[in-house]
């Protein structure tokens, strides 16, 4: 048992913490959000220079072979600054799927430029009728000669606008789930772009008789791989939420010490002290669950899914608690867009809506619960 980071991991953490503190202040973040989603931002280039784009991929894919802990360090630092760059949605998730499914030709075409920062991708797994279930898919793919034809609609696809291509899951005639790579300019695709309420660029993707060459089919049975990659995503989201929870707690504590009412700082009221302590307890317990998730990625599927579902459910409840308390303890200030803690609160509340909420994951835990 060892919770210590390696020397390299400590360096990674320090570098990223400094980078985020220097380059993603509240004002800088606002400016980044005001600009159109951009696959070629200065920060993304810095990510490339620091090796972050190579980190989560195995060495035989041209990556640096980072593990769950490395990913946790990165996501936590990004969460602390609410960094808008689509590291998870535009790189890790589609990249991992490519790494696990693509043949060498497909890797050269799509994965190598991703790691070099030459393009970004997106992953379209979600459909409106299925809530958080990635395996109930209405989008259809049919093979006709040397082509595939796709029809359907994908919902809340993160990083859709900046993506050079989107990985799309679709039901096959075989009954299996297939995975396709759909270039942004493929005829028959249309998008409805928007921001999510926590400021992430997203959109809905409609596929109307989109025809693709056979080389754009990545897998004709992607379920197990998709489950594996979504597990990575859930662990990463937990780590990101820990960063945001830390910052929300820090900002709230600082406010309680600084804000005076009735002639004394708010931090002198015991009712508020205990509330702050409860926030801290939620944070530390969630941190433990995020560590558990990050170190469970290589376990057998059912054990992995059990632990990661537990972590996602636990962090979801904590994230909401911390967000609500952060707003309440800031009083009306916490209700304003100007107050930075409100952005953290929005991110933490909406955490539950990405890759399954706490109810969804508690169901998984219940199903896999061992009686003895």
């Amino acid at each position, binding site marked *: 048992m060892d919770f210590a980071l390696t020397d390299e991991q400590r360096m990674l953490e320090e570098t990223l913490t400094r980078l985020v503190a220097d380059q993603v202040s509240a004002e800088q973040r606002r400016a980044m959000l005001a600009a159109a989603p951009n696959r070629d931002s200065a920060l993304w280039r810095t990510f490339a220079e620091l090796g972050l784009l190579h980190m989560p991929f195995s060495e035989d894919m041209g990556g640096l072979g980072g593990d769950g802990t490395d990913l946790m360090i990165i996501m936590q630092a990004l969460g602390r600054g609410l960094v808008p760059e689509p590291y998870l949605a535009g790189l890790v998730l589609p990249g991992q799927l490519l790494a696990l499914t693509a043949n060498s030709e497909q890797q050269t075409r799509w994965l190598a430029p991703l790691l070099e920062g030459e393009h970004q991708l997106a992953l379209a797994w*979600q459909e*409106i*009728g299925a*809530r*958080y*279930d990635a395996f*109930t898919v209405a989008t259809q793919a049919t093979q006709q000669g040397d082509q595939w034809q796709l029809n359907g609609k994908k*919902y*809340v696809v993160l990083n859709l606008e900046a993506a050079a291509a989107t990985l799309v899951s679709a039901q096959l005639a075989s009954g299996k789930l297939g995975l396709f790579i759909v270039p942004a300019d493929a005829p028959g695709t249309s998008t409805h772009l*928007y*921001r*999510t*309420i*926590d400021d992430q660029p*997203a959109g809905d993707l409609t596929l109307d008789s989109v025809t693709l060459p056979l080389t754009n089919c990545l897998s004709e049975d992607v379920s197990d791989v998709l489950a594996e990659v979504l597990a990575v995503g859930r662990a990463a989201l937990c780590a990101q939420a820990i960063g945001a929870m830390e910052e929300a707690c820090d900002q709230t504590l600082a406010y309680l010490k600084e804000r*005076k*009412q*009735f*002639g004394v700082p708010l931090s002198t*009221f015991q*009712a*508020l002290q205990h509330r702050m302590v409860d926030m801290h307890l939620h944070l530390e317990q969630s941190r433990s669950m995020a560590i558990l998730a990050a170190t469970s990625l290589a376990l057998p599927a059912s054990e992995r899914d059990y632990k990661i579902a537990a972590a996602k459910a636990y962090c979801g409840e904590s994230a*909401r608690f911390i967000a*609500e308390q952060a*707003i*309440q303890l800031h*009083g*009306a200030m*916490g*209700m*304003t*867009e*100007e107050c930075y803690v*409100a*952005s953290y*609160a*929005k991110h933490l*509340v*909406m955490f*539950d*809506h*990405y890759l399954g*909420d706490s*109810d969804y994951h*508690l*169901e998984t835990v219940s199903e896999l619960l061992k009686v003895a």
Partner: protein
Amino acid sequence: MNLTFSPEEQAFHEQVRRFLADSLPSDISERVRQGRHLRVDDHLRWQNILSEQGWLASNWPKEFGGPGWGPVQRHIFDEECAAAHAPTVVPFGVNMVAPVIMKFGSIEQQQHYLPRILSNQDWWCQGYSEPGAGSDLAGLNTRAVRNGDHYIVNGQKTWTTLGQHANMLFCLVRTDPVAKKQAGISFLLIDMQTPGITVRPIITLDGAHEVNEIFLDNVRVPVDNRVGEEGQGWTCAKFLLTHERTGIAGLGHAKQALRHLKSLASRIQHRGKPLLELASFRQRVVKAELELMALEVTNLRVIAAARDGGVPGAESSLLKVRGSELRQELSELTRRALGPAALPFFPDFLHGDDSLDDERAQNAAASAQYFNRRKLSIYGGANEIQKSIVAKTILNM
């Protein structure tokens, strides 16, 4: 004991329901139903209809032009309005400054201001909170210095709801900086057209422009615009905070939100079945239902006591705490029910006139409303303050 309404009250119920069915414009109720912000014209159109019916000032006695309803009728009216998706009457004139003018104002003030409120001629806003005086309202610093027939007012007010539309401001100011802090406060009525007033928007985390900051820079206010005596402002403010607060639980809104949640969760499919059949989700809904049942009876107990001549005091703090918590929980469950559909954010639809296809329009407000509802436990005396009131006045702690 008997929890049912009398035959007269039931007939009144029916009358209100019929009036709403006949008179509430459908475009306005649709906007309320979809959780969109109302435009000035929406508010005024509805308030003029109410005014014509004689029901705008539901809390006013007949002598001032109100319907003379008791607490039970007001309760029935509020509940039916919420159920019909009628806009909430902007409270600052009718429900807030008017009772203060009736109780403490001069005859001239009553004759001038009250009819203008009844006819929607004046739009009032509230100048209470300041950057340094929130929960500690009596710590306010806006200064009013007497200069002949005028006060010269300098300071800053904040969280002024819908102040961007207002032409009148009621305002707590410090007229005596030496007296004990509550004793040095006076209550002024200020014309928003007076030189020296600047209104600046505050955008809330749901993207809405609902509240404002108001800067007062050498604003000249006639002494005649003071309500009550100099130094009596805190008495006026406290009167307002305890006056007729039997509706503070927002029970009608909570009921409406629960109805909406149940219908939503019956339609949304989760693993091939309605979400409402998922045990864990159903249990959350059931818990909210129980809280609502309890709150309704508690509210009726307070209303009955008020009807029989008791003045609701710290009980309104209990109603506020539980009512706000329940409405917040219902907004949480609605957001949760939508799953990924709670993520897209369409501010120009919610806060403006953009259109949106039907399916998106129905769900667009859920997350924004969840964040907006955070205010319920903060404004009008944060829940922490309400609990301190209960500790002090009910439990004698």
